[in-house]
């Protein structure tokens, strides 16, 4: 019995689920631009909080979902923050740990950098959990004019990820029964991967051949275009989300260029 991974589409009826996939893609892109443009911790805190609120309220992800999907990145970000805080140079000492000075500038910059990564990961989780890969593929064809054969190749690649994950689990179990011990470390993983590669490749080629026959026998590729039932369209809510994101990005970068953004250290020296 397989259990689904956290980074995988789940059907739902939240505000974000109802948005068209391109709007969601635009939202992730906008969040990324805002995050990359913000080198000050308090701004990153606001962006991260806004994305977290969106995940919980507008995409209706549970806290458990968020933790399952981002804990590894969260750990990496905390490590990154601590190391940068301890190693980056600064002028104003905010506080000391075991006599070691912690500078306000370095702690602030490190926090902004760590939060930036986490914010983008969280926004990606919201996107992946709420965007049906098939709808995204269709949107690429109908809204972005991508050739449908390419869009379907992209969709099928996403579609078979869970199947391949399941097959790897089965191969691992089958080989453990043979007496192959689970290996640890990078070298162990590489030698395990080599052992899985052949059965996985043989199985994937058979599956791919079957998929090709199944698609061709139902007329896939018969014409240069195809019709789409239920093609997602950008509705008023999608237009509103895109406009808000565009305004925020333009406003933020304008404010940066015009010098309206002032640094206020989170870890104050006062």
């Amino acid at each position, binding site marked *: *019995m397989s*259990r689904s991974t956290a980074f995988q589409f789940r*059907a739902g009826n939240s505000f974000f689920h109802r948005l068209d996939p391109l709007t969601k893609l635009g939202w992730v892109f906008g969040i990324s631009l805002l995050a990359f443009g913000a080198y000050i911790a308090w701004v990153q805190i606001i962006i991260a909080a806004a994305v977290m609120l969106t995940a919980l309220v507008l995409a209706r992800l549970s806290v458990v979902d968020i933790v399952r999907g981002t804990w590894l990145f969260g750990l990496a970000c905390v490590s990154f923050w601590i190391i940068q805080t301890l190693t980056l140079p600064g002028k104003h000492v905010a506080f000391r740990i075991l006599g070691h000075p912690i500078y306000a500038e370095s702690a602030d910059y490190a926090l902004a950098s760590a939060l930036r990564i986490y914010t983008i990961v969280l926004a990606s989780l919201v996107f992946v959990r709420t965007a*049906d*890969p*098939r709808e995204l593929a269709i949107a690429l064809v109908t809204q972005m004019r991508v050739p449908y054969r390419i869009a379907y190749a992209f969709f*099928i690649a996403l*579609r078979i990820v869970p*199947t391949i994950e399941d*097959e790897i689990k*089965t*191969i691992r*179990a*089958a*080989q*453990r*029964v*043979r*007496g*192959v*011990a689970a290996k640890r470390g990078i070298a162990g993983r590489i030698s395990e991967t080599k*052992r899985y590669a*052949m*059965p996985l490749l*043989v*199985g994937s080629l*058979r*599956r791919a051949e*079957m*998929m*090709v*026959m*199944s*698609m*061709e*026998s*139902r*007329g*896939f*590729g*018969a*014409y240069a*275009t*195809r*019709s*789409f*039932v*239920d093609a997602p369209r950008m509705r008023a809510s999608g237009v509103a989300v895109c406009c808000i994101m565009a305004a925020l990005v333009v406003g933020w970068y304008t404010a940066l260029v015009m010098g309206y953004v002032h640094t206020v250290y989170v870890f104050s020296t006062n």
Partner: protein
Amino acid sequence: MNGALIDIDGLSYAYEGEPQPVLRDISLQVHEGEFVLILGPSGCGKSTLLQLLNGTIPHTLKGTLSGAATICGHPLAETKVSTFAIDVGMVFQDPEAQIINTRVRDEVCFGMENLCRPTAEILDRQLEALAFVGLEGFGDRSIFDLSGGQKQRVSIAAVLAGRPRLLVLDEPTANLDPAGMAEIFAVLARLNREHGTTIVMVEHRVDELADRVSRVVMMDRGAIVFDGAPREAFARRRAAASEEATAIPLGAWFPQAAEFAIALSDACGTPLPPAEVPLNVPEAVAFASRRMGELEAPPAPSAPAAAKTGEPLLRVDRLTYGYDRRQPVLRDISFTLHGEGIVALCGRNGSGKTTLAKLLMGINPPPRGKLWIGAQDIAGLEPRDIASRIGYVFQNPDHQFVTDRVWDEVAYGLTVRGIAAEIVTERVGEMLRLVDLERYRDRSPFSLSLGERRRLSVATMLVLEPRLLVLDEPTIGQDYERAQMLMGLMARLRERFGTTILMITHDVRLVAEWADRALVISRGALLFDGTPAAMFADKPVLAEAGLLAPPIFDIGESLAAAWPDSGVRPGVMLTALVRSVMQSRQVPA
């Protein structure tokens, strides 16, 4: 053109790079409204023949083609697969591999979207097609939430929506439990009867099909060796060559009702005219009744087997297990194995059978004090230690291969356990001879045929001489004769090593023919533990577990009910039933 939907004349075909043709001088005509069943051993070319019918051969799978073929009015050599898509619908064996989309409605609409049909028409037709296969209201369901039978019905709906003139199916029920299989055959029979759709189908589960098809085509080594009405097809025993060139009886694909009639006619020494060949249980009962008379004293029913004592081989003690505590997959399961030979573990797809087997092997961590092999708690053993006591043959043999050479593959389990080289050489040699793979000792395991790969995976387990061998669904995705050969090998190996076999299956004929004991799991609980004959007599158990009794049992049951004093008792062995009918028979002077 002579009005035939399929018109193949003197066609031969060899796959690209293969010297031997897989189809030899095939001539076949199929007319509108026919329901054709194609039978033959693995490797005889039946699936290749189906792939011709929509142009997959020669346009997608290249090769050397000679002869002429016209399908639905289109010449094969000049027509693309996508053009055939309008007239020909294809359904394959594995629903997992052929379903492209993740939502039911999207899958059913897929073909018509490719053909640029208008949206309103597509939506109407998908509703119609889903209703026809009994899946009304399933449009918004995720494919991942459906059972195997439902998925295959979605695959059929996906081609029906395009209203093909010709429906081609390649073993569509091979991966399904009996309940799923019955769903599919009922849909096909209705489609042929009510809509006149022409159906050409490869299938080895003939018991439920024989009285539904209008014609049977039998193939052997790339050629058609029989083409005619079902009663004629099943009127006498035939033989064919298997993939590995060994002669096997074609009876493997005969309906048991016909097999019974042949055996009974042989025993009576009377000819069996084709018109009298029974194709289902009621016909077989009528056939036998005509040959029965009054009986002397009925033989006493055999006594139940005495309960085994001594230390059990395997003990499962009030086992409850689940991935989610609120929804256990297994609930309070208890049973004991004492080395009874072959034990069948039956149940629907998803009933918990494989989960139980994975706990036995330590693939899923077993709870303490619940599973015992001999006096040892399985929870206290490493997977490698368990593997030397219990062997596990996975459904797909490829998953278990870890080396690049057949000899190394069998030796692997011994080598990692530090067995001395000379003992390894001796045991591997003996094992390869037993499974008849010695001639392939230097080949890659992946280059063997499926039947040979299966045998190799069994050998890799048995070389460790485990006391218990678990076979996971030996018939899933397998031809019937391959499963039979595998079970024959099991019987030989049991004699040599005394291994007890726990066979996870929902194939009732396999259970009837080979199992000494049957366990039935339903919704995670043990529903039945007894002999196969007692299981088939227990209708509520069969209904709950989605199982069907084999026709031979139903024939015996009906005869026993119709002739209560005849001494005929329902049983699972064809020869035993023929014998009891003969005993009851008043032989005419």
